[in-house]
C-alpha cells in the first residue's frame, strides 16, 4: 500500500514544471495597486491588471482597429442608491474589458454555446431592468438585478478571456 503511494508520489512529482508568465510579477504589482485603489473590484480588477500589464505582449490589444459596439450593452437606469451606482460602475468596467478582448473568427462549439447562454441571460436581466421602475420595491430589486448582471458579465469576460488565451 505505502509502496504504491510512494510510487504515485514519485511519478507525479517527476512531471514537468510549468513556467509562470514572464510578465506576471509586473501584473501582480499592478493588481495590488488596483486592489488598493478599488477594493470593491476583485476578480475584474485582477483580470484588468493582467490585461493591462500584458498589453505590451498581446498583439490583439495593440491595434486600435474599429470595432463593433460591445455585444452586450447594459441598460441605463438612474441609480437609486450609492450601492447600485457602485455596481453599475463595476458593470461598466466589465463592459470595457469585454470590448478589449479580441473577437475570434472561430470559437469552439461548446464555448460558443456557453457565451450564447450567458448573453441570453444578460438579455433577460436587461429586460427586467428596463421595466424596473414599475415594480414595487424598485431600488432593492434593481440592486439585486444589477448584481446578477455583474456576475453574468464577469462570467462572460472570463469565458471570452479563457477562449482568447487558449489555442483553438
Amino acid at each position: 500500500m505505502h509502496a504504491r503511494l510512494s510510487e504515485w508520489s514519485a511519478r507525479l512529482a517527476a512531471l514537468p514544471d510549468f513556467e509562470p508568465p514572464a510578465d506576471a510579477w509586473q501584473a501582480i504589482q499592478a493588481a495590488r495597486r488596483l486592489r488598493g485603489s478599488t477594493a470593491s473590484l476583485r476578480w475584474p480588477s485582477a483580470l484588468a491588471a493582467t490585461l493591462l500589464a500584458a498589453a505590451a505582449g498581446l498583439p490583439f490589444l495593440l491595434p486600435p482597429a474599429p470595432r463593433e459596439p460591445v455585444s452586450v450593452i447594459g441598460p441605463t437606469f438612474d441609480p437609486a442608491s450609492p450601492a447600485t451606482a457602485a455596481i453599475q460602475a463595476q458593470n461598466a468596467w466589465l463592459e470595457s474589458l469585454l470590448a478589449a478582448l479580441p473577437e475570434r473568427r472561430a470559437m469552439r462549439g461548446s464555448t460558443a454555446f456557453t457565451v450564447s447562454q450567458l448573453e441570453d441571460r444578460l438579455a433577460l436581466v436587461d429586460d427586467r431592468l428596463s421595466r424596473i421602475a414599475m415594480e414595487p420595491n424598485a431600488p432593492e430589486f434593481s440592486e439585486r438585478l444589477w448584481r446578477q448582471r455583474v456576475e453574468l458579465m464577469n462570467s462572460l469576460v472570463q469565458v471570452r478571456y479563457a477562449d482568447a488565451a487558449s489555442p483553438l
Partner: protein
Amino acid sequence: MPRIADIGIPDSVAAAARSGDPQALEAVYRLTAGPIYTLLRRLVRRPAIAEELLQETFVDVLEHIGAFEERCSLAAWIRSIAVNRALMYLRSPWHRSLEWLDADPRHADGLTIEGPKAAAGADGELARALMRLPALSRAVVWLHDVEGYTHIEIGLALGRTPSFSKSQLSRAHARLRDLLRGAASIGEGTPCTPA
C-alpha cells in the same frame, strides 16, 4: 520538483520581505512563483485561471506578509494561500458551471497543454490522466502525493472529513490506473507504421 514547503528562502530575505523591502519581495516571488504556478496548473484545468490565481495569491502575499507569524516556512505559508485560492475557485458556481465544458475530452486536452518542458510518453499520459480526474479528486491526489498534505489537512482545507480525503485518494488512484491502462492498450493497438 521539491515540495513547495521545502523551498529554502534565506532568513535574511524572508525578514526583509516581511518588512516590505521591494527587492526581497521580488526575490521571494522569484523563488516560489514557478512551483506555485505548477501547483495551480495541476489543480486548475484552465491556464488563464491558473494565471489569475497566481496573481491573486501573490497580491495576498504582498498585502499580508507583514502579518506572517513563522508558524511554518514562508514557502509553506504562500502555498497555503495558493491552495485556498484554488479550492475557493474549484468550489465556486463559476467553476461548476464550466465543468460540463471541461468534461469534453477534446476541450480538456486543449486546456492542459504542457509547458515548454512538455512531458512525453508515459509522463505525458500521466499528466493527461491526472487532468481527466474530477477537480476535487485531482486536488486530493496532488496535495497528498506531491505536496505531502495529510488527510487531516486536506479534510480541513476542503471542509470535509479525513475519511473523505482517503476515499477520494483511493478512488482517484484506481481511476488513474484505469486511464493509464486504457492509454497503453490504445497505443498497442495503433501501430505508427502501416504493415
